[in-house]
């Protein structure tokens, strides 16, 4: 550079201006910028590798796509094959956070699903408990870890008075010994709901809970857990559908007086006529 501007060899102004224009387009290269660019390529490589490994005969990734397009392309193929239920809600949330804060680390949070499996899990979460009072009552009846989900005031408001008189073990034993199949939907699925609430179904998707801030994407990984997750989904799929129907049933009266919650409790405790819940 010093050779261009030395005084003994004046450079024509026109040439200097051209040089100045070129320099204005240049930026210093920071290590952070290099890391950012190479990270993008690395993420894209990992997304392409997922597609090529699991769907070698499937639709190729468009070379012009970004890594997140490639990841979603892969997950759409996973959904189409019904390997498991993709947790689009979590992915959408992370994606929107990334869009709203491009300089943050949300791209890395989303990219963690290049390693981890974004599978939807069905254990009752704090969000479920906030949305469905019935699930709080159910969980408190059958799971020691959730026994603080209901207060005496709430039970009184709902008109439920007998829960405290029955232990969790007694309730679980009673559910095990009872045939609910004669009950109308969704009460016929109560044993499944109790299993989820107690986290003792033996199915990893039904017994696992997602909580924001406590979940890590690598809980299940593409490399180590895919077959286990697919096998678990085969069992969990009908139960997951029952759970959704059960939630809808509960939601129908969330703002009412708890009639359905009382019905659920009565059926679980064997106090409701009209069924053969005693299994005798």
């Amino acid at each position, binding site marked *: 550079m010093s050779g261009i501007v030395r005084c003994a060899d004046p450079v024509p102004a026109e040439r200097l201006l051209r040089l100045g224009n070129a320099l204005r387009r240049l930026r210093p*290269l920071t*290590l*952070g910028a*290099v*890391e950012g*660019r*190479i*990270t993008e*390529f*690395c993420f*894209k*490589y*990992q997304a*392409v*590798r997922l*597609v*090529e490994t699991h769907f070698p005969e499937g639709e*190729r*990734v468009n*070379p*012009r796509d970004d890594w997140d397009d490639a990841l979603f392309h892969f997950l759409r193929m996973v959904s189409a094959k019904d390997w498991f239920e993709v947790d689009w809600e979590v992915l959408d949330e992370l994606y929107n956070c990334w869009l709203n804060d491009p300089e943050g680390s949300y791209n890395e949070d989303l990219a963690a699903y290049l390693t981890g499996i974004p599978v939807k899990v069905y254990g009752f979460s704090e969000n479920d408990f906030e949305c469905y009072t019935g699930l709080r009552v159910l969980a408190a009846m059958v799971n020691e870890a959730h026994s603080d989900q209901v207060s005496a005031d709430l039970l009184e408001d709902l008109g439920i008075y007998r829960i405290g008189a029955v232990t969790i073990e007694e309730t679980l034993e009673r559910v095990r010994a009872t045939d609910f199949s004669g009950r109308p939907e969704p009460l016929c699925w109560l044993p499944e709901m109790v299993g989820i609430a107690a986290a003792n179904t033996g199915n990893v998707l039904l017994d696992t809970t997602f909580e924001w801030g406590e979940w890590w994407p690598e809980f299940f990984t593409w490399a180590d857990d895919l077959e286990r997750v697919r096998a678990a989904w085969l069992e969990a799929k009908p139960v997951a559908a029952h759970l959704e129907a059960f939630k809808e049933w509960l939601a129908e009266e969330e703002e009412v007086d708890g009639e359905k919650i009382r019905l659920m409790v009565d059926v679980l405790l064997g106090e409701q006529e009209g069924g053969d819940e005693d299994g005798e």
Partner: protein
Amino acid sequence: MNRVIAALLTVKPRQIQAVELLHRLYSRSTPPDTATLLQMGPEIEAALRDVQALSGSTGKVVKRCLELSAVPIQSPPNGF
């Protein structure tokens, strides 16, 4: 000469694998296709690890420099 500057001047220039790799990736007329990307994948991952390690080391140097106490210098640069 300031000891810190003297120490920094002894650092030899280092080739950054990621820079050379990025130059190759961006000098193409089209983005790399999937086959090329898969072929270059291990190299990309190695370059990322390298630049992350370098970034970490650089961060440590900067942090330690920022913690240094200010000392007067014998010959201030022109303009001061």
